[in-house]
């Protein structure tokens, strides 16, 4: 049950179109997919799947405009490498090579640029993938906010790997590889507008070792995503709609750092809508879920992994949350940017 393609009715692009929620979907499906429609693009997954000479490749691209450029736990450089590696990894691919494009504002400090390039190199080395090609452009002062980075990547998908929403079945379990909301809240606090003193670090990391460990379990692994913009809620809503199933989460089982809970509470933001940059969400057959959890936890990056919910047949297309309080509610996609409440 794929819902109708959303229409883009806005006259101008607003920040909401960039937030990863419903407005982003309207922009992508109502404009780009309409104009560029083709079978490779149409599934709108993290990576396109190509077949060349009998081999399957995953191909993806992503742009990074994070502000501040340096934040606790990372910077725009390792974020750009990890993000693209993750888009390939969750497609079941082993990354082969990356590209990197830099749009640099006149006046940007060379020392900062070197620091960013070094951090990209470290992240690429950890993921075992080279930055094989690149491009630089410099724009006038005021035309870019310091630095924008675009990365693309290509990876090989082994023949036995079969992943996708169509493989998800009622009864399957939902796993996350660690605490959620760390990156988004760390960056929000690092902007320094909140006068909050909180010790939060971005979770930016390549989830490749985790996806490779899960794929050892074969067909029991149904579907994987890295819940970035729009958070876990948006990733699971897309799954529920594409697969025509319901996803039921247990609030008490969600791994959350106290600092994330507290910051979200103060701002009136739901951690389920907050971006992650080094986390994996996977749907796994019920009888393999313990093995999958053990596989995730065997790696330091998956130490806080947890089974957080299950797939149900109905109500189709919805994500539900059993609250720790004993009630139930719907978890919707993010609408626009998460905006703090007034009181």
């Amino acid at each position, binding site marked *: 049950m794929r819902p109708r393609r959303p229409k883009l009715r806005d006259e101008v692009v607003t920040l*909401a179109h960039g937030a990863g929620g419903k407005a982003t979907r309207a922009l992508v499906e109502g404009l780009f997919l309409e104009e560029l429609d083709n079978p490779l693009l149409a599934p709108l997954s993290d990576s396109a799947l190509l077949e060349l000479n009998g081999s399957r490749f995953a191909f993806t691209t992503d742009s990074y405009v994070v502000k501040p450029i340096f934040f606790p736990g990372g910077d725009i450089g390792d974020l750009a490498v990890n993000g693209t590696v993750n888009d390939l990894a969750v497609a079941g691919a082993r990354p082969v090579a990356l590209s990197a494009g830099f749009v640099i504002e006149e006046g940007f400090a060379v020392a900062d640029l070197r620091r960013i390039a070094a951090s990209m190199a470290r992240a690429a080395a950890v993921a075992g993938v080279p930055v094989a090609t690149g491009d630089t452009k410099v724009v006038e002062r005021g035309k870019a906010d310091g630095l924008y980075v675009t990365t693309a990547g290509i990876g090989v998908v082994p023949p036995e790997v079969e992943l996708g929403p169509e493989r998800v079945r009622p009864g399957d379990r939902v796993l996350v590889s660690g605490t959620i909301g760390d990156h988004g809240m760390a960056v929000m606090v690092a902007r320094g*507008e909140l006068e909050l003193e909180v010790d939060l670090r971005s979770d930016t990391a390549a989830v490749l070792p985790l996806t490779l460990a899960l794929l050892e379990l074969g067909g029991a692994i149904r579907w994987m995503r890295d819940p970035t913009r729009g958070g876990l809620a948006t990733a699971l809503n897309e799954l529920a709609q594409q697969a025509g199933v319901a996803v039921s989460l247990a609030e008490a089982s969600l791994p959350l750092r106290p600092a994330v809970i*507290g910051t979200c509470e103060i701002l009136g933001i739901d951690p389920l809508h907050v971006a992650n940059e080094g986390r994996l969400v996977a749907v796994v057959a019920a009888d393999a879920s313990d093995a999958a959890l053990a596989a995730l936890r065997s790696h330091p990056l998956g130490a806080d992994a947890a089974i957080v919910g299950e797939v149900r047949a109905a109500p189709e297309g919805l994500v539900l949350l059993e609250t720790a*309080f004993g009630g139930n*509610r719907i978890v919707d996609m993010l609408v626009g940017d998460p905006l703090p409440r007034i009181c």
Partner: protein
Amino acid sequence: MRFVDEFRSGELAQKLAHELVTLVEPGRTMKLMEVCGGHTHTIYKHGIEDLVPPEIDFVHGPGCPVCVIPMGRVDDAIALAERPEVIFTTFGDMLRVPGGRGSLLEAKARGADVRMVYSPLDALELARRNPAREVIFFAIGFETTAPSTAVTVLRARAEGIRNFSAFCNHVTIGPPLKAILDSPGLQIDAFIAPGHVSTVVGTRPYDFIARDYGKPVVVTAFEPIDILHATVMLVRQLREGRCEVENQYTRVVRRDGNPRAIAALEETMELRDTFEWRGLGWIAHSALKLRPELADWDAEARFELPGTRIEDPKACQCGEVLIGAIKPWECKVFGTACTPERPIGTCMVSSEGACAAYYNYGRLQRRRDRVPA
């Protein structure tokens, strides 16, 4: 999380829920209006309706400060924001509220300098750092947020900061409650009164509800346990035939409120003769404006405003939702033409609006009626 988990204990919730079952009279529906949008949000976010017996019916009231701002005032705000010399500052959840000419977010995309702030003091700081610009703060909210506007204006005057002004849209909690109580066919049995606003005004402003209208009131905090506790207190009053103003939020709210905040309000603001409320229409003495001696910091006095009055969209039934006459999903456009991404009425804009809270969290029950789980 310390000091929060205690108020979200599932075990304690079960105890209170059990107590409610023993308290209600089977078949006698009790309609409780939670006045504040924060309560509405909590009720849906924690699934409280699943925990209370079917005899308890929560009706969502008018206490969402974003929801009650009429479209004409949003257009006035946009007109201010579009002036080239102006940096227009606002709380985040006002950004998406549609006026007749779109929202502040859209005005920003067209080039207006609109910035989100977390406090009016942040806006004052922007004024200090941008002496060549005019910084205007979109002051909205009940007596909860009005004191922070008052303090900021007083500080601007004390420091002689002339490029800061407030576009004052503060409203008061008593008059809309009276308007609801006076509306024909009212079916509310009791009130869950707001917590935050009561930290400022105290519990006296609700006395008339119990005294003149014979309806029980409980001033209530915002955690799910608080709401269940208040529900028990109200049901007990109804069963015992009492109608009193009780205070559940004793950890913060005092009978006389916060005298310093009230003094700051009195020093800076006075009642308007009348003010338009979205969905409720014009209500006498229901809003605040800056006193004439503070005209130098009053955006309404310093800048030309279009002041156009815009009719609420015909299809929109926000007014009936705001007085509890219909449930959000009974509105003709709920979830179809009016959604959080394309709101027609303001109840769909803020996460505390009854419609948005219901849309975001609560559609489950109705889905369950249709689709057996």
